[in-house]
C-alpha cells in the first residue's frame, strides 16, 4: 500500500528534517505519484528562489573579521 504524506511532511522533507526511513518512503512514492513529484518540485523551486535573494557582504568586511580573529590575542590581553 502506498503511504500518503501530509503537506507538513513534504515541508520537513525539503528542509531535510525527515528521518532516513521517511526520506526513502517519500522518494519512492514520488516515483509513482506524479502529483506528489510535482508538489515536491514546486516546493524545491520556491526554496531555490529564496536562495537567490541572498546578498553578499564586501570582501573588506570579511577581511576585517578574519583580521580581528587573527589578532584576538593582541587586543584581548590589553
Amino acid at each position, binding site marked *: 500500500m502506498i503511504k500518503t504524506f501530509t503537506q507538513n511532511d513534504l*515541508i520537513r522533507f525539503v528542509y531535510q528534517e525527515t528521518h532516513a526511513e521517511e526520506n526513502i518512503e517519500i522518494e519512492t512514492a514520488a516515483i509513482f505519484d506524479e502529483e506528489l513529484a510535482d508538489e515536491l518540485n514546486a516546493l524545491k523551486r520556491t*526554496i531555490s528562489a529564496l536562495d537567490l*535573494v541572498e546578498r*553578499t557582504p564586501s570582501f573588506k568586511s570579511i577581511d576585517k573579521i578574519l583580521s580581528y580573529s587573527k589578532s584576538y590575542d593582541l587586543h584581548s590581553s590589553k
Partner: protein
Amino acid sequence: MRKYEVSDSQLISLYKNGSEDAFTELVTRHKNKIFTTIYMIVKDHDLAEDLLQETYVKVVNTVKSGRYNEEGKFLPWVTRIAHNLAIDHFRKAKRYPTIVLEDGSNVFNSLEFSEDSIEDRQIKEDTHTLLRELIQELPDSQREVLMMRHYMQMSFQEIAEVTDVSINTALGRMRYALINLRKRMDKLNVAYDKNLYPE
C-alpha cells in the same frame, strides 16, 4: 541544501585549537545567509556590513574565550546574534523592528553577475528585488517562520519553541508562506524565469 565534507562543529573544534583557516571556512561558508538576515532587517547595506562585523566580534570573543556552547548548532547561533544586534539597532534608534526590504535602488550582488551584460544584470537585480518584496508582503507570522527556517537555519522544533506554537503550526506557516510566495511568483510570471533557474 548544501552538505559539507567538514561539518561546522568540526571546524569550530579546529578553530578552538587555533586554526584560523577553519574560521575562514566558517565565515566564508555562512557569510551570505548571515548578511542577508541582517540586511532584511536593517535595509541598509553599510549598516548591515557594520553589524556583520559586530556579530563576528562576538563570535570570536565567545569562541576564543572558551564560552562557546557545543550543544547548539553554529549557524543558528550566529544568525541569532546577528538578528538580535539588528533588532537592538532599531530599539536604540526607536524604530519599529520589522523586516524591511530594499526599494530597488541599491546595486545587488554585482560581483556575482560580473560576466553578465548591463542589461542582464539589471534584469536579475529587478527579479531579486521583486522576490524580496514578495517575501516582505507575506503575513508577519509566515515571514517570521520563513526567515527563521531558511535564513537563520533554525529547525522547525526550535521555531516552534521560540514562537510559542506547536511544531505543526510552525510547519503550516512555512507551508503557507511557500504557497503564497509561489502564487505571487506565478502571477507575476517570475516562476520559470531563466534568471532564476538557469539551464
